[in-house]
């Protein structure tokens, strides 16, 4: 089998060559440098850096808050996607367009704006303060920022999936006497399950690496409100390149694991769709 199928169109050599060259120069070689830098550390030194109490504390916050944010987004993302797909109301198209805003808005802007809104005297913070809820400069604020920036990923994954739900099946279930909740659990949920899981994973992946919006609202206390990307930056600022690289490789490995999960989930979702069609 040859490398590519013959085609009358020209330009494969030029475009393929440029693509692989540029990709290697800008992305792959720099990433290889990261792996090599971490690999040049002595094994015990590497373990000491990535398992220091401060690093462990940062993983706990980064992964815990990201998982919580992704969960919030799956729940509210489902409600949002359902509302946008199923209901007609004034301003629906505007709301639909706004879903992408966190994606287009620079993270530093989201960060300072959220902090201002949820600070002690902010528009929303002032009502939470008397209830004893502190959002800004706590792990709650971190979760909130991560929820904001990863929200489009959950909603945009769920919308097409909800369109796939067959209304006649819902009708049939209800005609046969199923309650709303039963129809939801046995008809709607199975159809959108792959999308729910993919949306969770995409949101989680986006949230784990986030830096800009979090550092403003987090308070950045070691062990308490310090995320892993910030710890990497602190290592870099102290010219501890290898320590930073070691933490970077930990995050990179987790990113790859998440990517793999997404691909497996999407393959699973496609298989289910094919099965359902037969």
């Amino acid at each position, binding site marked *: 089998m040859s490398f590519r199928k013959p085609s009358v*169109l020209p330009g*494969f050599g030029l475009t393929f060559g440029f693509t692989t060259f540029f990709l290697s120069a800008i*992305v792959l070689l720099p990433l290889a440098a990261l792996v090599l830098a971490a690999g040049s550390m002595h094994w015990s030194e590497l373990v000491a850096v990535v398992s220091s109490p401060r690093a462990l504390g940062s993983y706990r916050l980064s992964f815990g808050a990201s998982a919580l944010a992704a969960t919030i987004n799956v729940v509210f993302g489902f409600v949002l996607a359902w509302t946008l797909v199923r209901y007609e109301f004034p301003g629906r198209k505007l709301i639909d367009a706004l879903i992408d*805003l966190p994606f287009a808005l620079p993270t530093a802007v989201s960060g300072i*704006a959220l902090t*201002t809104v949820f600070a002690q005297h902010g528009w929303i913070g002032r009502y939470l303060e008397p209830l004893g809820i502190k959002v800004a400069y706590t792990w709650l604020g971190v979760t909130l920022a991560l929820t904001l920036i990863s929200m489009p990923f959950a909603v945009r994954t769920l919308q097409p999936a909800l369109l796939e739900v067959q209304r006649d099946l819902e009708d049939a279930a209800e005609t046969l006497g199923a309650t709303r909740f039963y129809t939801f659990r046995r008809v709607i949920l199975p159809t959108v399950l792959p999308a729910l899981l993919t949306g969770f994973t995409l949101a989680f992946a986006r949230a784990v690496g986030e830096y800009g919006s979090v550092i403003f609202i987090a308070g950045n206390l070691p062990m308490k409100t310090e995320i892993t990307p910030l710890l990497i*930056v602190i290592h870099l600022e102290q*010219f501890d*390149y290898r320590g930073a690289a070691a933490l970077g490789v930990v995050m990179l490995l987790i990113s790859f694991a998440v990517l793999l999960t*997404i691909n497996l989930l999407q393959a699973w979702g496609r298989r289910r769709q094919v099965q359902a069609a037969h």
Partner: protein
Amino acid sequence: MAAALPAGRPADQFRADAPARPGHDTWISAIMRWLFIAVSLTFLAALLLAPVATVFAVALARGFETYLVSFADPDTLAAIRLTLITAAVVVPVNTVFGLAAAWAIAKFEFRGKSVLITLIDLPLAISPVISGMVFVLLFGLHGWFGVWLEQHDLSIIFALPGIILATMFVTFPYVARELIPLMQQLGNDEEEAAITLGAGGWMTFFRVTLPRIRWGLLYGVILSNARAMGEFGAVSVVSGHIRGLTNTMPLHIEILYNEYNFVGAFAVASLLTLLAGVTLVVKNLVERTGYRGH
């Protein structure tokens, strides 16, 4: 594929098809409907609208004149200039890359194509801090080429080249991601006809392909531009935060904010928020043309 934003669909496709459904006009349905809409709107109002409104409320808190005066600060102007220069270099390069990648991937069948697509998406799955750090490891003072660069009096980290490299790394998938599905959907027939009839490769590209992908290309370029101008994490790592020299707009926002100059910080933020708004408008206009492939 990667941790990228799933492509939005044209808004029309989401319109609720609402024929009268038996048994659905009950009061429970009505309550459910308003509950869902209320929860959705509250969620978005707290998480999205309140922060965006705050940006403008704080920026204009001391009046429109103070808002305008905050742009007269030379450091702010330098940050705006640096951001524009960075985008002016990064966006065209990424556009050429995106066009080349889309042509190779969409027009030809070859082995390892899906691996190539995954690798192009890679920067979207990587923390921006890591995207900046890789260049510090290469070109920083204690990095691999650090000594050599210093001997030759060249600086990449804490200077413009580093900022451009980091921004390029972070934003480089966007044009390609827009174009690949679009060009795959459009197929090769028209290009093959043009070539068969004797048109050259460049002529085919400019006269046949480009007019058909121009809306998708436009959105890819606009999105790439918005992300390039707004990038914070990666640029923060390589920039060195030298006021008036290596501070881009997002980094300048951070400095002003940490100095409690809220009007100044939110004034700069308001420009980037407007840019995000323009990006969304273009996205919706492009989707309305129906040109997007997914």
